[in-house]
């Protein structure tokens, strides 16, 4: 699979951030700052219908009276929201490209470096790629093929124009517009993202994926993704990100909403490797993402799998709201923090319907001067009879300058439920390392092997293509931290 191989080739070149480059290209820049004018500008660029603009403006108004939360462990320097650009798109994309040949060759070169073979449709072997380049969707491959079976996979902007009924029905229904500061910010200034709709009874035959890239300095990425799986349908969605080297921190505050109706299943996998800051802890992406899935229908299932190795600060809690009877929510996570990275991540499983199930497997690895926190909530509503939860949080510490923390909140209001939570903390033992080395592996390989073993349960959940990339990523993220 060329994607994975490209990445591996890049990583073998050294542990320095392999994608540290910038594309020099003219970009249309909106003036700095956050204002009603900017919101209008974004909406106009996207050619959105009036109702969408109204929605954005409502969020903008709401934002004025909200404050950033401060209960999280990783503290960050104050962000001046007026000092950011909220829209940045390459000029050559002002008009939608008619075919792939219409794309600016510079942009195409960028995608090739990233290993996204837009031009190699045939070799893609079944992955439809919606490649987002800084705030505008460049191309949507395989769109036609998917259309034949009724699957809609397009940019969210396009969806507001082509499928307004669906967007209006579901946008903001899982993450309410005023849920919290970053969600509201996103609702006002989101610039792009994916829209997926799977019609009843359809099992999406290929994995859907999106690549992100943040380019221009001080541009926050505000992506918005909405995935709807109608009755009895199935979709597996992959999200993988890279970003170039920068000195200033860049903010990424995306919103992802998933809706699964009766008997439907959504599998959402993420491999996140954004610029984590240099070895001294400068620069790096702030990844403040809100991801939430609603298991609306009976027997529905949503499963989140994430491998987070990048970003200076990762702050996200992919969650499941288990409304439908017999619905299931799963969360598998590997979060690796090295050098000066900080992560405060976890999940929320809200049990509302009857006989709901949730499973949480979280593996946190902390090295260098990093700080890694698992924060989770398992909440059983008084009416949620027969709910079952199993949580396993394991932390692996490398050295004594880092920290690993577990903060689970368990709220059990129904006596017929069963909640089981376990957490352990350990280290890479010298015995294990010696054993591997005695069998011919060098230090790096040994660490990689042991850590991959530690994360196996989670990595197994990833779709094949990602799994290979992820394994390599996991090994590389800890280079230089042991010994």
């Amino acid at each position, binding site marked *: 699979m060329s994607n994975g191989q490209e990445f591996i080739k890049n990583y073998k070149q050294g542990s320095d951030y392999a994608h540290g480059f910038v594309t020099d290209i003219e970009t249309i820049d909106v003036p700095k700052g956050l204002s009603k004018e900017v919101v209008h500008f974004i909406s106009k660029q996207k050619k959105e219908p009036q109702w969408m603009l109204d929605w954005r403006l409502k969020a903008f108004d709401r934002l004025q009276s909200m404050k950033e939360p401060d209960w999280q462990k990783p503290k960050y320097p104050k962000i001046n929201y007026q000092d950011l650009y909220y829209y940045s798109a390459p000029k050559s994309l002002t008009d939608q490209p008619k075919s792939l040949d219409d794309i600016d060759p510079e942009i195409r070169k960028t995608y090739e470096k990233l290993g996204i073979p837009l031009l190699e449709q045939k070799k893609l072997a079944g992955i439809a790629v919606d490649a987002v380049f800084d705030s505008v969707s460049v191309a949507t491959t395989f769109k036609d093929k998917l259309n034949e079976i009724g699957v809609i996979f397009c940019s969210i902007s396009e969806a507001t124009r082509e499928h307004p009924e669906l967007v209006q029905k579901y946008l903001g229904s899982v993450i309410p517009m005023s849920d919290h500061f970053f969600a509201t910010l996103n609702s006002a200034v989101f610039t792009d993202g994916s829209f997926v709709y799977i019609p009843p009874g359809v099992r999406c035959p290929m994995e859907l994926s999106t690549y992100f890239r943040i380019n221009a300095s001080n541009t926050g990425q505000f992506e918005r993704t909405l995935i709807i799986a109608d009755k009895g349908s199935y979709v597996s969605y992959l999200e993988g990100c890279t970003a170039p080297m920068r000195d200033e921190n860049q903010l990424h505050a995306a919103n992802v909403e998933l809706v699964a109706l009766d008997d439907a299943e959504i599998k959402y996998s993420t491999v996140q490797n954004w610029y984590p800051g240099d070895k001294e802890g400068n620069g790096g992406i702030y990844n403040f993402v809100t991801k939430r899935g609603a298991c609306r229908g009976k027997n529905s299932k949503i499963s989140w799998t994430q491998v987070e190795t990048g970003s200076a600060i990762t702050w996200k809690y992919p969650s499941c709201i288990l409304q439908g009877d017999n619905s299931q929510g799963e969360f598998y996570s590997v979060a690796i923090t090295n050098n000066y990275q900080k992560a405060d991540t976890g999940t929320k499983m809200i049990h509302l319907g009857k006989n709901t199930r949730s499973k949480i497997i979280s593996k946190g690895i902390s090295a260098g001067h990093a700080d890694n926190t698992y924060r989770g909530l398992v909440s059983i509503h008084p009416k949620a009879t027969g709910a079952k939860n199993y949580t396993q949080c394991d932390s692996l510490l490398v*050295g004594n300058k880092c920290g690993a923390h577990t903060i*689970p909140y368990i709220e059990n209001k129904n006596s017929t439920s069963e909640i089981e939570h376990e*957490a352990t903390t350990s280290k890479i033992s010298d015995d294990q390392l010696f054993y591997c080395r005695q069998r011919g592996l060098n230090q790096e390989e040994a660490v990689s092997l042991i850590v991959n073993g530690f994360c196996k349960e989670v990595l197994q959940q990833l779709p094949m293509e990602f799994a290979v990339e992820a394994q390599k990523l996991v090994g590389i993220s800890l280079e230089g931290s042991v010994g």
Partner: protein
Amino acid sequence: MENYNEIKINFEKFINTFKTDDNDLEFRKKSFANFISKGFPISRDENWKYSPLVQDLKKFSHLNNKKTGINALPNALKENFDHYSIIFVDGVLILTDINDTGLVIKKNNSFLKSVKKAGENPILNLNNAFADQGYLIELSSNTILTRPIVIYNYFSKNFLSSFCSSKNFILLNEKSNVVVYEKTIYDSSIEYLITSNTEIFLAKGSKLKKYDLNCNNKHSTIFNFVKANLDENSELEYFTFSENINSCRDESIINLNGKNCFANVNAIQLLRNNCNHEIKLQINHNEEHTKSSQFVKSALYDSANAIFQGKIFVDSKAQKTDGYQLSRALLLSDNVKFFSKPELEIYADDVKCSHGSSSGSVDEESIFYLRSRGISKEDAKMMMINGFLGEVIEKITEDKFKNIFFNKLDHYSNHD
């Protein structure tokens, strides 16, 4: 916020007549000022997130700590084994100094103020401002006491005050040993706020076994704070049995400051009606080779709420720490609620730390096994619940007290 005028007036009245040295006066005024600036805790404060006190403290805008007439501890409540007594009746300490070989028990008049960090815990601030009763237990080095010390906290039917605070010290010098049994009995049926603040210092090689019985309190709101500092090779065995307590927060901070010290903390929550009982426990591993174990079990009936927040903190130099925590809750009626937040904050890598928390109802397979042996459904359930809670009592290392608590369990599980 709330109206604290009445409390301010009462504090003024109190501080103007209370006899103490200047440092203490200063500290009390500072604590009170800190309390006023923050007021009673709110649920948005992470430390008080699930606490029943947030709701119940609202009743106490009129904290009056005047002492009502002195009553005596009824003889029926006195333990019949040989022991040293410390008796509080209606919030007043009735004590004649004890000066035995190696043991000193006296009224805590000097109110050593070792809790210097005023401002963090609002109720502790209140206690530091108002506490005017308390005991001091001090064992000199190498004293191994065979007679246990029993602390009686008795609230009689004549108790009319709305507030009482005590501040106590237990100091064990090197290699000394003692067992302290503290029992609280409530005959009063008015609403009042009790705050107690006990500081424990265990010097090298010393061992303290503290057993607390807190039962059957339908009206009052209680804040129990214990802070223990353990030095090298010292051991704290701490067991609490809370049964049918209306509204309470048992908060403990245990600092493991010396190599090879060990804190063994065990608790039972057996709650009915609308009881709301919170255990907040933090064990700080500040030194290498320290060990801790937390074991809490809860059985909830009717509309009771139980809260458990247990934290294991491991400092970056506390390598070879062994920290273990287990909390289990049995939810035995439709309207009960269990909130748990078992936390790990770890900065050292060569450690063994784990925690587990589970909640649910009684295991059906086990009930069937017992029934297949002729035991009725109700009896089977009762056997399982008693067995469940009994596992915590098994951790008590003093046999005499193990039996006392098994009897209490038997008594309380068969009564409503």
